[in-house]
């Protein structure tokens, strides 16, 4: 018994050093050399200040920007230090009411008819609350409003959208989508 305890404690110490110290430190050193941008969160800098991460959703509220999906992360949504989903089940009144309200608001906000079909991603909260992407359909429906707010033509906004869109690799891997932050940055640079 005594030997077992001694073996266990000593082995635990060594294996902790290998897997809990040497391994993460080695991965950090190598990845900071090879992929410094990604390893540090793909941060976007604007005028010398961090303006967000290209990987994460942020809260866009004004008319001139495309909006991200609804978020349940943190109290006000889009909290990148408190990722979370709504966790509402399919028969939850809270879920159905929220989606119904958001659907009406989305139609009014984007100048759509009262029976216009709304893409699911525009009114459902994502798993992380930080989903950086929206579907192309969702973006197209927002294009009129964004174009009007910017005094740009709809065609020009759609052209920027097309340039930022991503499609499945080889037709099988991935989805048709656009990264909202990248899209909004591209518009700002026009």
């Amino acid at each position, binding site marked *: 018994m005594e030997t077992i305890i001694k073996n266990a404690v000593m*082995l635990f110490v060594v294996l902790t050093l290998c897997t*809990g110290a040497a391994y993460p430190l080695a991965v950090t050193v*190598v990845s900071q050399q090879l992929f410094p941008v990604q390893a540090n969160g793909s941060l976007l800098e604007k005028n010398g200040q961090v303006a967000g991460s290209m*990987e994460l959703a942020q809260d866009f*509220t004004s008319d001139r920007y495309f909006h991200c999906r609804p978020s349940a992360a943190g109290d006000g949504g889009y909290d*990148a230090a408190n990722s979370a989903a*709504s*966790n509402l089940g399919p028969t939850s009144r809270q879920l159905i009411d929220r989606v119904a309200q958001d659907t009406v608001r989305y139609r009014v906000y984007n100048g759509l008819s009262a029976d216009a079909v709304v*893409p699911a991603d525009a009114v459902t909260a994502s798993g992380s609350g930080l989903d950086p992407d929206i579907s192309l359909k969702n973006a197209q429906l927002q294009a009129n409003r964004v174009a009007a707010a910017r005094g740009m033509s709809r065609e020009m906004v759609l052209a920027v959208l097309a340039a930022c869109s991503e499609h499945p690799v080889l037709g099988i891997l*991935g989805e048709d989508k656009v990264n909202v932050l990248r899209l909004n940055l591209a518009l700002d640079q026009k």
Partner: protein
Amino acid sequence: MIKDIVLYLLWFSIVVFAAKFFGSYLYRVFEKEGTWLDPVLCPIEKIIYRFSGISPQQDMSWKRYAGSLVVFQIVGLLVVFFIELWQAGLPLNPAKETAIPWDLALNTAVSFITNTNWQAYGGESTMSYFTQMAALGVQNFLSAATGMAVAIVLMRGIAWHSKHTVGNYWVDMVRGTLWILLPISCVFALLFVQQGVLQNFSPYVTAATLDGGTQTIAMGPVASQEAIKLLGTNGGGFFNANSAHPFENPTALTNLWQVFLIFLLPVSLLFMFGRMVKDARQGYTIMAAMSVLFFIFLGGIYFNESSGNPYLAALGISGPTALEGQEVRFGLGGSSLFSAVTTAASCGAVNSMLDSYMPLSGMIAMLQIMLGEVVFGGVGAGFYGMLVFVVLTVFIVGLMVGRTPEYLGKKIEPYEMKMVVIAVLLPALAILFGSGLATCTATGVDALHNQGPHGLSEILYAYSSAAGNNGSAFAGLNANTLFYNLTLAAAMLVGRFGVIIPVLALAGSLVEKKSAPDSSGTFQTHGAIFAALLCCIVLLVGALTFFPALALGPIAEHFVLQLQTILY
């Protein structure tokens, strides 16, 4: 749809192809037949043994093996527990996380030593970098290595004969960690970083967003944790949102790698088993049974998710109406695949929130756990879990044809059957007893996030996940209460050691037996008939045990949803 099916088949072929290669690698590692990493690792291995006072040549009886295993887990439990309690004063805590309350710390410590990785906390708002790395990350390796060691002991029990020892626990742990888990994790951690997963020790960043707001962005050494989280079928996310978080799982490609890593070792172990018993067909047969079950379950989840939520469809919403809790970059295909894989294996990482899944897809996820996670299953745990069902099948067939049951030349006698029955019943008991207790106490019910049948599903899922050592959740349930922290910790312990110890005893008994040669009356344990029987036994045991509970939860909710009469 066709796109997703093509992707599934392609992915599964890659898993099997890679596992064939790794299966023979695993065999060489544990049989010490020499691998290309030996020149680097053998000297390190020697130093480790000398430092720890271990004599690697000394094989252990099953009892000594089990004793060493338990003592090692207790050391791990204490270390994780105290690091959590004291994390405020320990280094690498830029976000100034405070000490963890004792009940949550205990629940988390049990959770990580049992390979469950149930998380009653949000990672980025609770755990310091030090705790994540030196406490939780370490257990991701050690609990996976332990599972693998137990699986290999069972293989030895079957393959060896007339012996009294089953191997050396310390050696199995060191070899599993150094030769298998660490190298694969290193490679995939770097691949993950390339795709956008974090790996730094920076303090949280405050950003001034484009639209005039501010956003605090959590940082940390994520990629190193991510790789082993999946490879070791642990599933404990660095962030609260787990693999749904773009910093853990940024692209469709990383999503595919993640599900690949979850299945890699469980499938490899089947190939290794074939080599150990010198009959590859034995491994293939079990693999065939698992594959059939897996594709049935995957298809079920995919179908139910694509059918969507009729309540939402009625509001004039197009596209996948079950998208609540899912991410656009994974879509229906990537989300369904991940959920099927993570609950088939006892991983428990999630890339979409199961609480918001359609009732029957949530049920399939839960059912896979209830069946004992024998559809490929966790690293090692899936293999020995399924072998328990194999022995059960052999026994039942033996009764039907009226012969003494045998498996690969070993007679199955009352002692073996006792161990098998304990290993099958204890986790089931923990699930049903725990859920029953929670539903009839106020503290249990107060924690619910959803009402109606879905509320029962939240409770059932929690105890299934704990007893099955899965770790995924219907995460709406507020499980960070004294009641849930303690009862779920108990369920995790029962689900882990209530299976491991009978399995070691089974191996210890089998290894002592002589190997009888096949006779004309021996029931063959390879081929389609046996695979089909095995599937039936697994489903039958699960259905008989859990159908009543499932009928009151997800099945009832399914009808509520289809009839669209009530909302909760």
